[in-house]
Each structure stands twice: as structure tokens, then as C-alpha cells.
């Protein structure tokens, strides 16, 4: 997946300017930068979630398997199935644990019970949650802890077998132990997915990602291997941000 010369406007305000960035399979790409730098906006351009915002528009290209997802012929609903998203705050539906994970399958027309049950178990296993909830599948998902809810949201996203997983500060509402679990999960998941994660936590970016992109004022300032960015950044601005001198 890649973006070329992507601009994004909220009304007249340019939130992203000329962003060209490649995302690789089996790699975790972290997007870092101060608040309002456009990293979340970029993430939400990648599955066209920004379409929901009135008076906003995107220019430039976002390619998924070579196809521009902003092409008018693209089926946005189908696209979003291929690109899963995990949000900042855990947002399970007020339904049972089972129905949360099965939701994406059901809306895609799958109703066969045995298949659903298998797929739900598989997804919960992938999200390292099965052991904790296997006897609570019919309980409300809102009764789970915050960390469990977030892993449930990850399981829910994985259930529809997306190719790309977008994570918008997935740990910002979680305690350190839950955060650690999610980070371990990201490590395991990258063997099968393209993962793109927005984070405010620089240590987290350093821990979980292979590639890091630094954003400032809607522009991609520098992108490189995470090791390089955190040890030998090319630009002074990147170094200042990473070392905490501004941001």
C-alpha cells in the first residue's frame, strides 16, 4: 500500500500536504509527530474513513495493490473490509462478545453457524483473547476490561481477514500491562498483515515498528527504518522531536 502526493483538506485547511509514503507487507509502520500533525488524518485516508467528514476532500493517490482507492469506481464498503481499523478508544458494540467478532462476517453475508463459530474462535485466538473470554462469549462485551475490549476490537477487525490493519493510538486509553499485551500482539500479527500504527508514544514506536514516519504540520518530514530514525535521523527537526526538545 502506498500514497503518492496525497493532500487532504478540512474545508480550506490543508491537513496533509504532498504525502508520499510506502507501506510494506509484514512490516509495522509507525506514524509519529506532535498533535495535529496529520498522522491520524493520513491513517483515516487509507480506509476512506474521512469520507464521513463533511466539506473535506482528498487529492493525490492512495494505492492498494496498485489500484487507487479514491477512484470513483472503487467500492468503499469493500475497501474497508480489506483494510481493518482499530481505534483510539476501545469501541466494542453493546452486543455480546461473540456478536462483536461475528459482526463483520454477518454484514458480509455470512450466516452459517459453524463457520461463524470457527471464525470467531480463530480471531479471538489471533488477538490473544480466546483463553480469557471463551466462557463469556454470550456476555456483553462492555463488561470486559479496557485492555480486553481493545483486543476484542482487534479480533473483530481480524475476523473479516483484512490485508492491512490500521491502528490509531490503540494503547492510549490502556494501562501499561494491557499496552504490553497489545504490543506483543502487534509483533505476532505482522507476519500476516501490513500494519500501520499512529502513536504518541515514542518508545512504543521504537518497540513495535520497523519503519517510522515523522510528521509535522501536515507534511511527512522524514521516513526511514525505525532504528535509523531513532539513532541517526538525517534531519535536525526529527532529532529534536525524538529527543523531546519540541513537540
Amino acid at each position: 500500500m502506498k500514497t503518492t502526493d496525497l493532500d487532504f483538506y478540512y474545508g480550506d485547511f490543508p491537513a496533509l500536504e504532498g504525502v508520499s509514503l510506502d507501506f510494506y507487507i509484514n512490516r509495522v509502520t509507525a506514524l509519529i509527530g506532535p498533535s495535529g500533525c496529520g498522522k491520524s488524518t493520513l491513517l483515516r485516508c487509507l480506509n476512506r474513513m474521512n469520507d464521513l467528514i463533511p466539506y473535506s476532500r482528498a487529492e493525490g493517490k492512495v494505492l492498494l495493490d496498485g489500484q487507487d482507492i479514491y477512484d470513483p469506481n472503487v467500492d468503499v464498503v469493500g475497501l474497508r473490509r480489506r483494510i481493518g481499523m482499530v481505534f483510539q478508544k476501545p469501541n466494542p458494540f453493546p452486543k455480546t462478545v461473540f456478536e462483536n467478532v461475528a459482526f463483520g462476517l454477518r454484514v458480509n453475508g455470512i450466516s452459517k453457524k459453524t463457520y461463524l463459530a470457527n471464525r470467531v474462535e480463530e480471531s479471538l485466538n489471533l488477538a490473544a483473547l480466546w483463553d480469557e473470554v471463551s466462557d463469556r462469549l454470550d456476555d456483553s462485551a462492555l463488561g470486559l476490561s479496557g485492555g480486553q475490549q481493545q483486543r476484542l476490537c482487534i479480533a473483530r477487525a481480524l475476523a473479516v481477514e483484512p490485508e492491512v490493519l490500521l491502528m490509531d493510538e490503540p494503547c492510549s486509553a490502556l494501562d501499561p500491562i494491557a499496552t504490553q499485551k497489545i504490543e506483543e500482539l502487534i509483533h505476532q500479527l505482522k507476519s500476516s498483515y501490513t500494519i500501520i500504527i499512529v502513536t504518541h508514544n515514542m518508545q512504543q514506536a521504537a518497540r513495535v515498528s520497523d519503519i517510522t514516519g515523522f510528521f509535522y504540520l501536515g507534511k511527512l518530514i522524514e521516513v526511514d527504518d525505525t532504528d535509523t530514525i531513532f539513532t541517526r535521523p538525517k534531519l535536525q527537526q526529527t532529532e529534536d522531536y525524538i529527543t523531546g526538545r519540541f513537540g
Partner: protein
Amino acid sequence: MNESETTLMEPGAMSSSALKGAEKEQNDMIKPSHARERRRRVFQRSAFGLFRIAAAVNGTALAIIIYFLVARGWRAINWTFLTQPPIDSMTKGGILPCIIGTLCLSMGAILVALPIGVASAIYLNEYARPGRVLRVIRLGINNLAGVPSIVFGLFGLALFVVLLGFGVSILSGALTLGAMTLPVIIGASEEALRAVPDTYREASLGLGATKWQTIYRVVLPAALPGILTGAILGIGRAAGETAPIMFTAAVFYSPSLPSSIFDEIMALPYHIYVLATAGTEIEATRHLQYGTALVLIVLVLGLNLVAIVYRARLRRRLG
């Protein structure tokens, strides 16, 4: 503790108390702020008291009304009263046709208003783009809520009874009451839809659900308890109205129960109105009037209770 008290003190209080001994000084420094604390507490308490009284007035009003109706009407209530039609020029007998009529009308009104109202609310809250059209529609709905009920009665007479030829019937009455109930239901439904967090919508869309699937499977279920509240209010209002049905559905007296939606019917509020203003024995039927009113209010409260219990069940299931 003492330090923070000091910072709250005015400079003047400091200099006067500085003359006294250390122990005493401390006491003096705490005292004025105690007085202030007390003033604040008194103010706080009296404000609370006022609000509590305001809230209590509501409950008291309901209690007085119910007491009044029970005290004057309970003698009229018996098995015959509830299960027989009126006899002897409506000076004796029961009110069964009125009970049936009011149930038919309020259920009919909800059947008409709930789907249209919820659909309108979904359009307004989920689909419509903000702009002039939306503002005009909203203005219309708000004004609809302000239209006096007698005007709805005349509207129903002109449109449903005469123009569409439904005659004075359950159908005309239910449609008229439905139109009157619409703004209540739209308002409550919109409120309920707005209260559904956007994160639910985003999560659903992010999983490849269509907009309609998102609304139908996620937003509506989450909003259902609130929508039901609207329905409760709507039913209550529809059941108690007289003006909208007096030209469209209700009759003075009907010897038989309705057999189709095109039949005219008796209704509780209209029956009270008739007995109290146009009956043959207004004074002698007082207890029947109060009895009928008691039945009406119990019916409305009963309907509300059913809906409230159902709503609580739904909430528990969702929570």
C-alpha cells in the same frame, strides 16, 4: 492545611491577627474562612432545596390528580363498569366500548407515527447533509409540535374523513392522532440517535458494513431504548387527546363494538367530555365521569409501565 487557609485570606485580616499570639493567630486565621464556608454551605443547601421543591411539585401534582380521581371515581369502578357498554342514555352501565376505542386509537396512532417518525429521525440525523433543506424540515417539525390539537382535528376531518373518504372511523382518528404524535416521536428518536457514539458508526463502517447495515444493526439497537421513550410519550398523548378525535373517530354513543378500522368508535376522553358537558344527567353521572377518567389515567400509566419495563430490559441486555 493551615498554609492553604492562609492563601485564601485577605491581606487585611492578616495584619490584625498578626498582633495576637501564635496559637490564637492560627484560630483567627481559620475562623473567617469557616464563616465563608458556612455561608457557601447555606447557599448551596438553599439552592438544592429550591430545586428539590421544583422537582417535588411534579410528583405532587400527579399524586393530587390521582388522589382526586380515586376519591371521586372508585365507587363507579366495578366489573360491570369495565365489561359492559353504557345503558339508559349513558347514565348507567359500563364503558367497555370507550376502553376498546381508546386502545385502538392509541395503538393505531403509534402504528402510524412510529415507523414514519423513526424513519424521519434516521433521515435527519444519519443521512441529511446539514444545510438549508434540513433547517426548513426541522422548522416544520418544530412548528408541527406547536399546532393546537383542535387544528389537527380539523385537518383530520378535512383530509382523512372527507377528502380521502375514510369517514368518521378508527382509521381517520388513528391517522390524525399519528400526525399529532409525530413531532414527539421524531424529537425523541433524533435525540436517541444523536446519543449513539460516532465510534460505533466508525467501527461498523470500518468492518465493511454499508451505511444501512450500520444504522440497522448498530445505531438503531443502541438508540432503541430512547426511541421507546418517545413512543411512550406519544402513546400517552394520543390516548388522552379529545380534540383530534371528536371530528374524526369518536361518537357520542355507539351500541356495538367496532368490527373494522372503518367503524366509528367511542373513546374515553371524549366520553368524559360528553358526560360532563352534553349528557342527559350531568350531575347524576359525576361518579361515572370520574370513574372514566380514572380508567383513562390507569390505562395510560399502564401503557407507560409496560414500555418502561420493556425499555429497562433492553437497556440491561445492551449494557
